[in-house]
């Protein structure tokens, strides 16, 4: 009976795969030429790299919601019942400690470079945030958890900062400019940089907190 089930399932999936492959490879003539549009209004988007322009200006609203999704994930993890931290910590091997000493500064440097480079070539807050988060996790694994204390008190402030700034900018543009996230062309560059830097920090903190799960890292209010 089980084999029959698998066979039927396999057949169904094959048919689905065939249909999808056919659909995906159909010749197509899109009505809108999106790259031309983007090139056209890249000038007043405040950044020169088209992906960052789309990400933070043309479709900034999606990015705002995306940061909120990260926040929700963090809240979802924190609200679960606390678990004792995994006991597998133990002694930190020499190789790991040396590697960490070497890599940490480089990682932080590259993360900041990525943040800055985002305006002109591929990069930006998310890539930098991921790197910074990785650096944080590496530091944790290597036993350098001095920064945990800071994280301890101010978790939600740090994690919420990115979304907070983004919301503030959005509200500001709505109140003054009349349109949500309507960044005026001349200040667009600076505003994007501000948003990206705070987002960088929040994404890093969120990723580290998500990695830690619900360890002791919580301002356990009574």
């Amino acid at each position, binding site marked *: 009976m089980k084999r029959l*089930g698998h066979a*039927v*399932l396999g057949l*169904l*999936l094959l*048919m*689905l795969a065939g*249909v999808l492959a056919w659909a995906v490879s159909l010749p197509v003539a899109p009505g809108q030429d999106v790259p031309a549009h983007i090139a056209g209004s890249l000038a007043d988007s405040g950044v020169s790299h088209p992906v960052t322009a789309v990400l933070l200006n043309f479709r900034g609203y999606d990015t705002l919601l995306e940061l909120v999704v990260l926040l929700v994930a963090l809240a979802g993890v924190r609200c679960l019942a606390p678990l004792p931290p995994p006991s597998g910590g133990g002694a930190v091997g020499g190789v790991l400690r040396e590697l960490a000493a070497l890599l940490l500064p480089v990682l932080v440097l590259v993360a900041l470079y990525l943040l800055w480079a985002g305006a002109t070539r591929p990069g930006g807050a998310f890539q930098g945030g991921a790197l910074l988060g990785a650096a944080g996790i590496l530091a944790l694994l290597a036993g350098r958890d001095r920064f945990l204390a800071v994280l301890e008190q101010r978790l939600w402030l740090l994690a919420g900062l990115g979304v907070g700034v983004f919301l503030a900018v959005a509200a500001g543009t709505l109140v003054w400019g009349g349109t949500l996230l309507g960044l005026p062309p001349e200040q667009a560059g600076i505003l994007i940089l501000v948003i990206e830097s705070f987002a960088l920090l929040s994404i890093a903190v969120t990723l580290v907190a998500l990695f830690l799960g619900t360890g002791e890292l919580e301002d356990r209010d009574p």
Partner: protein
Amino acid sequence: MSLLTLVVFAPLLLLPLLPLLCGRPRQWLVPLVALLPVALLLPAQPLALPWILLGSGVAGGGPGAAVVSLVSVFFALALAPWGKGAGLSPRVSACLLLAQAACIAALVATDLMLLLAGFTVASYALLAARLSSGALAPGRLPAIVLLLVPGDLAAFELALLFAKVADNAVTPSVAGAAAVLPGATVIAGFAALAAASRGALLLLVARRPGQLLPTATLVLLVVPTLGWRLGDAAGALSAVLAVAAGAAATAALSRLWPPLAARFTQARERVSWRLLLWQGLDAGAWPGRLAGAERELGSWRFALAGAIVLVLLLLIATFF
């Protein structure tokens, strides 16, 4: 409310006061009131009572008035506290007064409705009077009732026929009845069915005081007069014959009744069929399979495979 109606229905008006009057020194007042309708002998023009029943009326004078006075005399005699006994119990005298009032109403009514009403109430009142003064022999009561009730229904059918023939008048007048219906049907109808059942009441005759006289007056005096009012001489004659036949029939029936009753056992109330939908659900047998199917349906495999089938089905559907 003219004097006439007051006089005619005096016994009826007296009813509520009865419990006070009986058993006290003033007990003689009851028969005196029962005598009041004799005043009907005085000449008085017919009176219309549009608000009684469906618009009936009362006619004084004429032979009917004579019979009324006779009836009143007989009832008064029955009600009087003879001899040493304290007279009749309040319930019996109440029933008798009601019977008298009903007889008078039937005798003087100008419309068929009041006649029917009086005719029926009188017989039931007499039956109640007889029963409240002592139980009948085992077979007698069912026999009487078995004839009384069909008799009333026959009277009901007859009245409907009268109404239809008298160009659908809701309440046809008694006077016109004989003229409208061909002679034979009136007489046969009323005499054979309605009057016969009254013959059954003869069985009520018992030695107790106040029983013989009222029943006799109803069966032997009032019924023939009503027969006469409806069908003149022939109506009266057939009424008398019917009464005799009714009495004989009831006597025979009352002997047959006890063995018959024994066989008719009380039919138990059948257990009604259980409502499958309701009880079936709670019994738990049937839902087991359904819940199993749900668990199977609820498993990941089945559902996601279902999703794929759904996609393919939707695709096929788009081709038509």
